[in-house]
């Protein structure tokens, strides 16, 4: 949530450079709406049902049984949120993808309390814009 709010703060900058920004989680749309409302997000929150995209990026993992039980006790009923019985999650990850489809920045961390600054992402997107305008000129 904190990371999403921080990304919202730079979303106008990213948008001004022609970039798109999407957040992806395995949660059903109703929870995506809740996130957007609570964090006041203006970018799309996408539903990655059954973590197919997270799997394609190599990010999906299954929670160990003790953590599953702990989350359920906290009311984090991921089976309900995800519409699947497995308590699976994507590792926190931020990617910048260039228009040719190549990944230009990747930050994956098993620890959700260690995240890159949004300004680092803005800088990568700015570099891509600079590279593109040089290409157009030459």
């Amino acid at each position, binding site marked *: 949530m*904190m*990371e*999403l709010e*921080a990304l919202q703060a730079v979303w106008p900058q*990213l948008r001004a*450079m*022609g*970039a*798109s*920004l*999407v*957040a*992806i*989680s395995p949660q059903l*749309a109703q929870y*995506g*709406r*809740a*996130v957007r409302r609570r964090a006041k997000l203006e970018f*799309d*929150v996408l*539903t*990655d049902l059954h973590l197919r*995209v997270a799997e*394609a*990026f*190599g*990010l999906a993992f299954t929670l*160990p049984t*003790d*953590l599953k039980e702990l989350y359920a006790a906290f*009311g*984090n009923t*991921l089976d309900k*949120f995800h519409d699947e019985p497995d308590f699976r*999650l*994507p*590792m*926190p*990850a*931020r*990617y*910048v*993808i*260039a*228009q040719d*489809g*190549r*990944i*230009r920045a*990747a930050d*994956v961390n*098993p*620890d959700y*309390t*260690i*995240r890159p*600054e*949004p300004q680092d992402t803005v800088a990568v*997107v700015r570099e891509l814009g600079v590279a593109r305008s040089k290409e157009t000129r030459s």
Partner: protein
Amino acid sequence: MTLQQRLDAFKAAFESGAPPYNAPREAIQTMHRATEDLRRSGLAERALKVGDLAPAFELTNQDGELVRSTDLLARGPLVITFFRGHW
């Protein structure tokens, strides 16, 4: 405050066991163990990285509208953040 400073502050408050989170010591240990196991599994190192081709995707947004990565990339660079959930 940077994002990392805010995350550090949250982590310190959560792990103190004090209100508002009142996290039991045992719960914190379970979480640490799970994170450590995930780190040791090497999954993060095997995830897609810089230079790899990103897989194309088609997903629905919060309003049920279809969003295609190819449409977004036709307009400009794409930033994706994968997150756990609203909780």
